[in-house]
């Protein structure tokens, strides 16, 4: 899923500084699963903003709504009759949501409430980790099913750098060295030889480096 973190309250208060009435829009997709932008979090943010503004002596009127998804015009359309009544719409979806909203409602101020971080999953309750960088040409089958593009701090393709120690990455003791995991796995399997061939430079054209991307599935296009 797409993982995100909620922005600090201070930053959000600054964004709504000149607003009297806002709509907070949650999303039932990834951000609900990672407990950052579902209806529960929408409720918490609404309350927090109201209390904070009350303290400042300037009331903020806040409405709440959570859409099925914000990355789909069909659902984004659902608020077409109400957005006009607000000074701004705060989206709690990943970075995609506020953009779909901005495109659909060009006259409206759309504010992002979360910092979208990565494609990953929960490794334990309350902890999410990155797994994929969306490079557009998946090659993890060469690396024991583990991704060095997203998970090695240097995106190395030919083995662990000289900073790998005790299974941890040189950047932090809190980060696993993915290359240590890849090598250990291949050794256990007796397939180390697969890591001894030189892997050629990556073609980054399919990644963000090639410019904004688009997927066209002809059979679905009407």
């Amino acid at each position: 899923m797409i993982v995100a973190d909620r922005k600090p309250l201070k930053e959000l208060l600054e964004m709504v500084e000149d607003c009297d009435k806002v709509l907070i829009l949650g999303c039932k997709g990834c951000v609900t699963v990672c407990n950052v932008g579902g209806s529960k979090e929408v409720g918490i943010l609404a309350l927090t903003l109201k209390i904070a503004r009350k303290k400042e002596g300037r009331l903020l009127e806040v409405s709440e709504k959570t859409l099925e998804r914000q990355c789909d015009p069909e659902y984004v359309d659902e608020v077409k009759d109400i957005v006009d009544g607000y000074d701004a719409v705060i989206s709690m979806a990943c970075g995609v949501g506020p953009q779909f909203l901005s495109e659909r409602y060009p006259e409206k101020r759309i504010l992002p409430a979360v910092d979208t971080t990565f494609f990953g999953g929960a490794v334990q309750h309350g902890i999410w980790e990155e797994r994929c960088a969306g490079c557009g040409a998946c090659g993890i089958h060469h690396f024991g099913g583990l991704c060095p593009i997203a998970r090695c701090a240097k995106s190395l393709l030919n083995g662990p750098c000289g900073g790998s120690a005790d299974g941890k990455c040189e950047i932090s003791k809190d980060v696993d060295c993915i290359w240590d995991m890849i090598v250990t796995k291949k050794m256990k399997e007796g397939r180390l030889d697969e890591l001894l061939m030189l892997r050629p430079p990556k073609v980054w054209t399919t990644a963000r480096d090639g410019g904004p991307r688009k997927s066209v599935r002809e059979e679905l296009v009407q």
Partner: protein
Amino acid sequence: MTDLKSGSNLEKVLKAGHFAFTGECGPPKGSNVEHLKKKAAPLKGVVDAVNVTDNQTAVVRMSSWAASTILLQEGVEPNFQMVCRDRNRLAMQSDILGVYAMGIRNMLCLSGDHQRFGNHPEAKNVYDLDSMQLISMVKKMRDEGQFLNGEEIDVPPKLFIGAASNPFADPFEFRVHRLAKKINAGADFIQTQCIYNMDKFREFMKMAVDMGLHEKCYILAGVTPMKSVGMAQYMAKMVPGMDVPESLVKRLRGAGKGKVAEEGIKFSLEQIEEFKEMEGLAGIHLMAIEWEHRVPEIAERAGVLPRPKV
């Protein structure tokens, strides 16, 4: 000597079978040419080539290629370092052509420390290629006269290709394979990480020799004299992939006030003596960090002077 790859002094010394002795010089944190010349001066004639570091530990300094050309003017042969952190394949290839055009003949290919350690942790990291792919690209440029994309190069850069090896990083069993991989990719010579754990290094070299790696490539053992107990502790704790045994820290501490640096040098000299005899080694790479002026004395005491004229 017609089959030289680059014709660099370092290559000739190694090819002639001499035990090589290389040094290191970090460019200044500024454009202070005089400072650089002053640091490089003691190394002249004392070492076969001098590594010029490339934004080492991700701290911005004068560019490695510019500092290398200044060394060249001073009559000191540079070993131009390039890391993969700061340049994509376009910038890498153009710098490679540039340094060759300026007369540089040795190049060391490295991954580079992550920018998180440095003085611009906010930077975007590049890592378009990794060090292995960089080695292979320089070889392709030199031997096939082609860019990475296969286009022809008008006067290919003839560089003596170096790479680093850290026998002390993990997973240990993979390290010798990684060395072999670098050699297959095109490394002509290898300079190791600073060695302090001699037991582990002996084991590593034995594996390398068993695999015949020393016959395919020149391996230079990395030596950095400890200047103080604090430095030893810092290296042990803060420098990724550094293995400083507690026994060495104890030994330095035991030397007593004012004598730690001398004890550090003694340890290095003992290492060098052993390295001279160790099977598979072709030389020493002395990284006397901010201690360039002590290198002549260390070289003298290590018995590696005068340097061969080849």
